[in-house]
């Protein structure tokens, strides 16, 4: 499996393990984004670049990848619903309850900021430098940007989305037709008449 897929899964697992009921983690883009979940984090591979170099022609390929970490919150209006629905409430009590209700858009804005705070701290923590993978698999882990989108109504909640661009560098291996890296070499090839001078090299394509 190519490393960009390994890293994507690692980030998904990292965020999922740290969720502690604060958000849900999904490792792909959902076509229908439900508005019944308070906070959801979507992790998916967005793009990658392969800088060309002399050594990359036959060796491993450097892959600068960008993962999209999408943050979505769905908020309700919050207030003294009990006072509003209580049949014994007076007009004044209901008016006070309504005046102190926080609209869904205000809740969504605060919730999104909280979620962005949590996710940034998790991904950029020093002990997550390798994104949960073995040392050496990931280099230059960095959250390049954060962007909040426009609040929209969806269903009975107010939904606010945004995203973070997580970049890092990995090394990709090309496994070839036989899915075996490299080429086999036989080295016991005698050169000349000296039976002890086995210095020849014969390249042999690996068996399929």
């Amino acid at each position, binding site marked *: 499996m190519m490393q960009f897929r390994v890293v994507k899964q690692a980030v998904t697992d990292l965020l999922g393990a740290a969720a502690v009921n604060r958000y849900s983690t999904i490792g792909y883009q959902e076509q*229908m984004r*439900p*508005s*019944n979940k308070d906070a959801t984090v979507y992790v998916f591979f967005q793009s990658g670049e392969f800088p060309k170099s002399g050594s990359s022609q036959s060796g491993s390929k450097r892959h600068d990848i960008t993962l999209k970490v999408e943050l979505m919150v769905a908020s*309700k*209006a*919050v*207030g*003294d*619903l*009990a006072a*509003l*629905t209580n049949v014994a*409430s*007076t*007009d*004044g*009590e*209901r*008016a*006070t*309850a*309504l*005046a102190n*209700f*926080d*609209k*869904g*858009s205000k809740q969504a804005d605060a919730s999104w900021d909280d979620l962005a705070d949590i996710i940034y701290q998790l991904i950029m923590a020093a002990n997550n430098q390798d994104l949960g993978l073995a040392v050496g698999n990931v280099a230059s882990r960095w959250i390049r940007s954060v962007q909040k989108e426009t609040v929209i*109504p*969806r*269903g*009975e*909640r*107010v939904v606010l989305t945004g995203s973070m661009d997580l970049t890092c560098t990995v090394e990709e291996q090309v496994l070839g037709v036989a899915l075996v890296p490299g080429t086999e070499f036989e080295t016991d090839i005698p050169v000349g008449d000296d039976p002890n001078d086995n210095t020849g090299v014969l390249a042999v394509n690996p068996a399929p």
Partner: protein
Amino acid sequence: MVNLRALAETDLGVTLEGEWSMLVKLTGPSGVEQPDIPAQVVYETIEETETGVETIVRPSVVTVRISTLVTVPVSGETWGVEIPVSPVVGAATETFILSDRPLEGGESIGFLRLYLTKAEQV
């Protein structure tokens, strides 16, 4: 000559308040309730078959005839809207808060479309 706008407003008595209507209660910023307002109510959930989780993707909308109201909601105000959650007679009701999305309709057309936001106890 018949004024078509006046005729259309009269027709709302059938389209909004006729046999397809449901009774809702509006509570304005002053705390005064307007109960038993006939309205068209759209409230629908979709259940995800894989997880059984209810996913609400269609907004809950209440459409009321303006001439029925004593006090008319204005965009930006905070109103409570109590609706039956099912067309079944005697169905349970739920109270929502008017969304801060701009209201649709107005005096010129005779009806007002109210979008609802789910409310949560603080």
